[in-house]
């Protein structure tokens, strides 16, 4: 992990409150893995004070570019969305442990399930799985038609099913209603209720879940983002540095 003063190359709104930012720094390379995240300082002042953890959506190691997608929701991300190309964006990264891409073999089948702002890291994961010859199927869930993003991008990598909670686009309902699929691996990132529902799919194959949690430092020092380990009152994992990706069943969701 490094602290990088990256340059904002491009930024655009891609759905309701959803922004895609492309960052450049000569140190950005393939050490940034799918499922890892960067800890982004929004604005130069002390309000907001802490960094925002944002997942990695795509990395171009030759051009040293990193794409991240975030939802402008609070003070920090609303500052970030107003940054223009040329702005210096201070990031820490890559942080955490990503998806076990190397474990999946050519010819195996993977289902990638994303919910809302949990969708972006699965794009990078899908790219890397495709490179290995893995058959990838995507199920991405959103609130409504206005919040759908990266439809064409995902379709280029494999079949895509889109669900919306209000039924305004794609299939109506939650992602879990569209998972009548066989798989060797299921990878997911999204809100806790979605991840909890996906734990049941452990009987069908290997399931890896990427967790979201309020963080402080992002490097494992402050113990803000801990979660319990099944079967112990004292054992814990830090979402930021032990995760954010865990095999289903390892930690209490």
């Amino acid at each position: 992990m490094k602290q990088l003063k990256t340059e904002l190359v491009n930024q655009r709104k891609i759905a309701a409150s959803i922004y895609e930012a492309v960052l450049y720094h000569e140190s950005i390379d393939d050490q940034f893995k799918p499922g890892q995240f960067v800890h982004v300082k929004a604005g130069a002042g002390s309000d907001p004070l802490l960094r925002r953890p944002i997942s990695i959506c795509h990395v171009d190691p030759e051009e040293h570019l990193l794409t991240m997608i975030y939802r402008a929701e609070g003070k920090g991300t609303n500052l970030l969305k107003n940054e223009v190309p040329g702005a210096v964006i201070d990031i820490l990264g890559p942080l955490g442990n990503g998806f076990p891409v190397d474990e999946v073999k050519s010819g195996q089948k993977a289902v990638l399930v994303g919910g809302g702002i949990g969708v972006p890291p699965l794009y990078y994961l899908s790219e890397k799985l495709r490179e290995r010859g893995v058959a990838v199927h995507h199920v991405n869930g959103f609130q409504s038609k206005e919040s759908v993003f990266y439809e064409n991008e995902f379709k280029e990598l494999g079949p895509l099913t889109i669900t919306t909670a209000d039924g305004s686009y794609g299939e109506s309902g939650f992602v879990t209603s569209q998972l009548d699929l066989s798989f060797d691996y299921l990878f997911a990132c999204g809100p806790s209720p979605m991840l909890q529902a996906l734990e049941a799919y452990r009987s069908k194959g290997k399931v890896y879940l990427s967790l979201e949690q309020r963080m402080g430092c992002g490097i494992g020092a402050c113990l803000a983002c801990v979660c319990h380990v099944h079967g112990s009152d004292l054992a814990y994992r830090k979402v930021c540095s032990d995760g954010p990706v865990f095999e289903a069943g390892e930690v209490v969701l």
Partner: protein
Amino acid sequence: MSRLTIELPGLSLKNPVMPASGCFGFGREYSKFYNLEKLGAIMVKATTQEPRFGNPTPRVAETSSGMLNAIGLQNPGLDNVLQSELPWLSQYDVPVIANVAGSTIEDYIAVSEKISKAENVHALELNISCPNVKEGGLAFGTVAETAYEVTKEVKKVSRVPVYVKLSPNVTDIVSIAKAVEKAGADGLTMINTLLGMRIDLKTGKPILANGAGGLSGPAIKPVAIRMIHQVSQEVSIPIIGMGGIQSAEDVVEYFLAGASAVAVGTANFVDPFCCPTIIEDLPPLLDELGVNHINELIGRSWKNEWTLQSSSR
């Protein structure tokens, strides 16, 4: 760098900057960013007799120029700290200040006695001011009599000097400071976090699972400065100051208020390199202020005979 050296009970500091307890773990994470020997000292995470998981999440919430935390003294327990964390840290030539917490006076005594025997522990920091635990913690630090009692008992068993970490959540911090000085404390560390709360508009409930939490960060610096200014004039033991320090300028302000060293807390979360950066920034700032040695600054805000060269600018 000899202009930054500070001598305190049990501590020969090559510079007066150290990470604050609870904001640096036991150093492992930050050792990946820089050599820990750059630090004046390290205040490690609070240690209790038994391992603790701490509070449920969410444990942090942001505020304007600050953050609330309610970690709840999560730590691996005394045995693990003695067998694993402190020996690991001993590879670095840097004094350790062990933060001691507990639910009862007996807890404080037991942990202090054992942890003060560890070779790299040069001082104890008695945590009688944690706002995030149901028993002990803050309860010891808000009443002068109990603060006196726990300090006195720990002094009997500790093999190293004892610093007492004061809570700002009191009506009269001077009376607490005087009580622990009378009990034999070798120094004070101040301030711990201020009790606060944030409420989520969507749920209508507090953001922190614990409800309230401790406020830290730049937002609390003026409170700490005022309290150190007040306390340093009333006691003769040294003060390690903390609360919202982010820069060399902040360090100088703490010294002027009456601190003899400082600890950096929340800023480590924002910038992992903040401690070494502050240490590097101090000598040029002393030049700018026309100060030869940093100890000349201690308490100058209330010592009338002296003014900073640059104050006439």
